[in-house]
């Protein structure tokens, strides 16, 4: 009886580990993905080459997450003549390595494995009890 319970538990442990290890091995570090067939939405044109000319196009086509307030025109004697609003968006993330769904998969897999193990234990114990 005890051996049966322990065997079922070992089976459940193996199932959990087997489902979680490959998921973690996927890595959490930002791994650059080789350039695939991602449609390039970003204009490659450099921003305004002339210092006196305002930029005609934004270098990044990513919709800015941010600033709702306008840039601040500084006083004429300020060291920075126009103060931009918000933080610059200098981190274009590759769409191929999101990890948000990964944690969900890990949790779901673990829960399923545990439920399976519990069910196995229950069935074995019932059979042993009725057979005894």
């Amino acid at each position, binding site marked *: 009886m005890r051996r049966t319970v322990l065997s079922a538990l070992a089976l459940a442990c193996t199932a*959990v580990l087997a489902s979680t290890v490959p998921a973690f091995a996927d890595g959490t570090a930002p791994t650059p993905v080789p350039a695939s067939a991602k449609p390039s939405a970003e204009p490659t044109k450099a921003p305004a080459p002339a210092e006196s000319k305002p930029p005609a196009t934004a*270098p990044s086509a990513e919709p800015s997450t941010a600033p709702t307030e306008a840039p601040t025109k500084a006083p004429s004697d300020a060291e920075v003549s126009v103060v*931009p609003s918000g933080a*610059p968006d200098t981190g274009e993330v590759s*769409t191929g390595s999101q990890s948000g769904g990964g944690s969900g998969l890990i*949790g779901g897999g673990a829960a399923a494995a545990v439920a399976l193990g519990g069910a196995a234990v229950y069935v074995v114990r019932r059979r042993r009890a009725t057979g005894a």
Partner: protein
Amino acid sequence: MTLPSRRAFVTAAMATLLVGCGGGGGGESDGAATGRGRGEDSSPPPSPAGKNVRALARSVPVGLRIPAIEVDTPVMRLGLAPDGSVEVPPVEADDRAGWYRHSPTPGQVGPSVILGHVTVGSYGEGVFRDLKRLRRGDRIEARLANGTAAEFTVSGVRTVAQAEFPTEDVYGDVGRPELRLITCGGPRSGDGYRDSVIVFAELSSSGQGGS
């Protein structure tokens, strides 16, 4: 082993498994709260009392070299985006840094602002990928269009939440030649990053470029 004790054993084992599995679900979060002056890699911005180094004449930057993190990049000019934020260099394989053209040129009095990407989407890492590794005392050299170079020394590195970007600390008047290097950092959130990494540096010397 009695029946109740077996049940307790099995329950405890299952609970342990669940806890163990849940521990790694944090994804890319580094687990640290972010804010102004976060401990791990932040240090205070430069103190107002610095060395008296003579300011340079205006000359736009054409290159940037940071030996400590093996950066040697051309520098382009950046202005304002239509939404009022500062422009950033284009996302392309040949990533480079960009100087905000409404800020002083490197070596002039005031905070000269240079930006670069930490990652450039499917192209991989950006030119400022290792910016957060800079430490106080590291050297930064800005090559200028007139053939000279302005050499700066890092006085502080801060990682701050983008929602709390320290505009005044970055763009405010300082009364002496300083440099700001800016990129993104921290964990990714959605299609961007949660934090900004800002390097503060002070002019330490000037000389002929091309070193």
